[in-house]
């Protein structure tokens, strides 16, 4: 079936296709046809040396199997397949979610028992109040109040710079704290002292949870004051410029009632209370 006739002068029109055409028509090594023609011409009918063929086939199969084994063996170590990695990330995210949910239920049950027990003594009640105040300040308590809602979203153009980056989100959050925010959440993820905003591909991870555009940053605080101070901040000016240049969405508006969820409780694994303390301001 191999055609080795040179292309006709008349077929100049599809000359550019010749590579693909040759690939398909010459798919079978022309050596076979040449060898067959040669054998016919010489009148010989050589039977193939099957031992040789067998050895080659065994070698070929060996190579293929070794490659397959190799790929499987290195899969857990480096997970070359992206979809396997993504599936693993999804699985771990689901596990983390499940664990956080059970922690939340367990904590809630125990909090009820604990609160009941603490309320029965004076010292206990005072301790409970201190804990509640600290939770409020840290972010472990759901809160409601007026404030500002800032929305950032990726631009729809295909240009490279139109994705909201983790640095931009960090800047906006930083500017909101400066403007007087008392509690901030990004896409419903409450920020605490340990919350990090970090980027991977298209997604920005807030507290290790992937979030997608649009990113809604809600901040509770004095609404009018925050709007003025945030609007006048360098971050807002930069974001307005970036928004115009690259088509990102950046806008903010006051909200009279924002509800921010509680962040899950955290335990410390490395930090312990120190005995000596230095008052603030000493270096």
């Amino acid at each position: 079936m191999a055609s080795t006739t040179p292309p006709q002068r008349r077929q100049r029109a599809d000359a550019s296709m010749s590579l693909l055409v040759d690939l398909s028509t010459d798919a079978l090594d022309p050596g076979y046809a040449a060898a067959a023609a040669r054998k016919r011409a010489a009148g010989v009918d050589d039977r193939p040396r099957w031992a040789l063929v067998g050895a080659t086939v065994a070698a070929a199969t060996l190579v293929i199997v070794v490659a397959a084994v190799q790929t499987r063996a290195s899969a857990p170590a480096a997970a070359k397949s992206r979809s396997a990695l993504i599936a693993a990330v999804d699985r771990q995210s689901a596990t983390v979610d499940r664990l956080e949910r059970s922690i939340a239920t367990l904590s809630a049950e125990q909090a009820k028992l604990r609160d009941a027990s603490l309320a029965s003594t004076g010292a206990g009640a005072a301790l409970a109040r201190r804990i509640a105040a600290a939770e409020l300040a840290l972010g472990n308590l759901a809160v409601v109040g007026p404030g500002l809602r800032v929305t950032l979203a990726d631009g729809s153009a295909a240009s490279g710079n139109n994705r909201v980056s983790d640095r931009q989100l960090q800047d906006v959050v930083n500017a909101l704290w400066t403007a007087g925010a008392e509690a901030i959440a990004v896409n419903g993820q409450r920020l605490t002292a340990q919350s990090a905003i970090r980027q991977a591909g298209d997604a920005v991870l807030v507290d290790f949870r992937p979030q997608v555009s649009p990113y809604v940053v809600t901040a509770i605080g004095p609404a009018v004051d925050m709007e003025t101070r945030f609007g006048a901040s360098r971050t807002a000016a930069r974001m307005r410029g970036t928004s115009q240049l690259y088509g990102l969405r950046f806008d903010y508006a006051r909200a009279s009632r924002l509800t921010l969820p509680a962040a899950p409780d955290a335990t410390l694994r490395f930090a312990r209370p120190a005995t000596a303390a230095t008052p603030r301001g000493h270096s």
Partner: protein
Amino acid sequence: MSADGESLHQRLVRALFARPSPAQLGVAALCGLLAFALVTQVRTTAGSGTLASARPDDLVSILADLSGRADRLRSQVADLQRSAALLSNGTTRDSAALAQARARAQTLGILTGTLAARGPGIVLTIQDPSLEIHSDVVLNAIEELRDAGAEAMQIAGTGGVVRIVTSTAVGDLGSRVTVDGVALTAPLHLVAIGDPRTLATALGIPGGVVDTVDSSAGAHAIVTTSPSVSVTALRALAKPRYASPAPAPTP
């Protein structure tokens, strides 16, 4: 026009409304299967859209982060289950409740900056004689350390020392960096308590904090790990005036 002179329209009508032959049923089944596969693939790609374009290196580190977090959460669950036993027992309930409350108060104290803390960690020292370092570097350092699991942090410079908490905000005042309003001048010392290796790696990634500082004229960053660092700067507990506890439905 087909062979026996039917118009396209007639062929179409005939094709749409005639009874299907077995061959056509076979073709139809295959087309249905293809459509099903296409839709499934589109939904799969859409579903994993958030991470679909992340680089494999990013995915590997996200996976490592998530696994570490899952391990921490699992030990937290174990702790909670132990304390559940103590709390549900009537005789131990009160003392257990008090002990747990004290422990929680301590944890919260460290996280909110009202208690001094000690533990393994790192010290990031930034030398900056030409005052090239601005607030963006400090912010980046704080975020990287948080991402690496820092549990308590403080930053010190000429001008004061500030405990870093949830609401910590950095800014610039002239050529000095301000942290929560306190203006600091280099050399800056950022102390963080956590796993020293993880914290040090986070600061040392290519293009990370150490690289950025070192590439600024005259500035230099050093990360020192230590089995014991102290975070002794304190701050008063914030008393929110606009945020109040939400009425509690279940989360």
